[in-house]
């Protein structure tokens, strides 16, 4: 009879696990959720221009801490500091998300051939997240640097930036990239950690939010263009009636 030797000891697997693997994954999701939720708020704050100059002015004063100043005017420094903070969050997110990029040409070819041969919607959605993520590497820092160097926000000052300083071009490119990236990302992070099993509902919600945010963003961009075209340089800051 053949004897079989079995080793019945506590298994010592090779010590290849490193705490940073888990940390990087948690960081990517946490910064992603932060940025995605911030985008939802940001889009609504900036589109308050659709309710008129007065509404936008009040939103800006509130967010810049106007209630803490004697004049009721907020401090642009708040925008500056917050932009620096968001830049740091973006840098962390980009650094850990880089793990996902097909950095080698062979990986890119494998991905393209997979997308061509296998019919799967979520993989295609990820592909668009990858492309928009790459675009955001270049567009987000430009937007944030503008806000750090020149943090003055207001119905007229923002319109000047959009129309006279030609920032509309940046926003027209940034809007679809960031909305698509963030909404697919929020959907993915929810199913990734098993926050919900309602996948089809979430997917619909992500689609609806993408369309809604694109409409909202485009409409407010057009509104700024109209306001900007009515202003003459040098632009005077808006004064509430």
């Amino acid at each position, binding site marked *: 009879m053949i004897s079989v030797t079995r080793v*019945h*000891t*506590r*298994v010592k*697997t*090779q*010590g*290849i*696990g*490193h*705490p940073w*693997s*888990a940390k*990087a*994954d*948690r960081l990517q999701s946490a910064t992603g959720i932060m940025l995605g939720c911030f985008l939802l708020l940001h889009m609504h704050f900036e589109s308050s221009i659709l309710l008129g100059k007065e509404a936008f002015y009040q939103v800006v004063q509130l967010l810049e801490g106007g209630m803490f100043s004697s004049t009721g005017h907020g401090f642009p420094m708040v925008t500056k500091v917050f932009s620096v903070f968001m830049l740091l969050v973006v840098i962390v997110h980009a650094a850990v998300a880089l*793990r*996902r990029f*097909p950095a080698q040409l062979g*990986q890119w070819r*494998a*991905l393209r*051939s*997979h*997308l061509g*041969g*296998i*019919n*799967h919607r*979520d*993989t295609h959605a*990820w592909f668009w997240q990858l492309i928009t993520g790459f675009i955001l590497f270049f567009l987000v820092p430009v937007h944030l640097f503008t806000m750090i160097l020149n943090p003055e926000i207001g119905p007229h000052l923002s319109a000047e930036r959009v129309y006279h300083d030609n920032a509309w071009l940046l926003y027209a490119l940034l809007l679809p990239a960031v909305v698509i990236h963030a909404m697919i990302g929020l959907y*993915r992070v929810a*199913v*990734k*950690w*098993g926050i919900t*099993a309602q*996948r089809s509902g979430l997917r619909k919600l992500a689609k609806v939010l993408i369309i809604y945010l694109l409409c909202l963003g485009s409409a407010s961009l057009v509104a700024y263009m109209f306001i900007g075209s009515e202003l003459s340089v040098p632009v005077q800051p808006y004064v509430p009636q």
Partner: protein
Amino acid sequence: MSQGRQLTFNIFRYDPQEPNDKPKMVRYQLTETPGMTVFIALNKLREEQDTSLQFDFVCRAGICGSCAMVINGFPTLACRTLTAKYPKGEITLMPLPGFELIGDLSVNTGKFMRELAERLKLWLHPKANDISIHRLEDPMAPEEAARLYELERCVECGVCVSACATKQMRETFVGAVGMMKIARFELDSRDARTAEDFYHVIGNQDGVFGCMTLLGCQDNCPKDLPHMQQIAYLRRKMAMTLV
């Protein structure tokens, strides 16, 4: 009975053993019969039109996992795919990507599964006090047995591996089948391995933290295994280990 419609099959043909053979798509025509599956059609084609056609099958009932292939862009089991599903009658068959090609539609999933099992140590590691073969095993709670059995349903067909873009991009990624099996032993109360032990096996870019949640595994698994929940469970579990 009325005459069945004409089906058109576009089948990937390539025999790596033939020195001068080049990969190509070959068209075949076949008359559909009632209840015909892609598996039945392939057998008919081989019997009546081309005896050199290579493909795998054993059970023809979705249990052995041998006949997995890419049918019109979806990796699945040929024996569980009715030709009636395709209103145009056009069916394109490709071998599962990501595996060693034996020839035509036949791939070596067995070699991959064996290497995976050895690498991830996919067998029960008993506790130290369970060494004696004379000792009776403790009874298992029916709920736990049911949970384990649910994950044991995997037939190792390789569909999850082929449906996963992450796996296609990263050769060393363990894929859903690896994680499903790790989860099975993680849930087993008889297994001596701790969360930390499992972390050293799948707590990295090749394991659960390399998964990008593309969910090709979840959407294509012919046995409808709960890959999405299982990987999320492992991710949560592993993210709380080694902190």
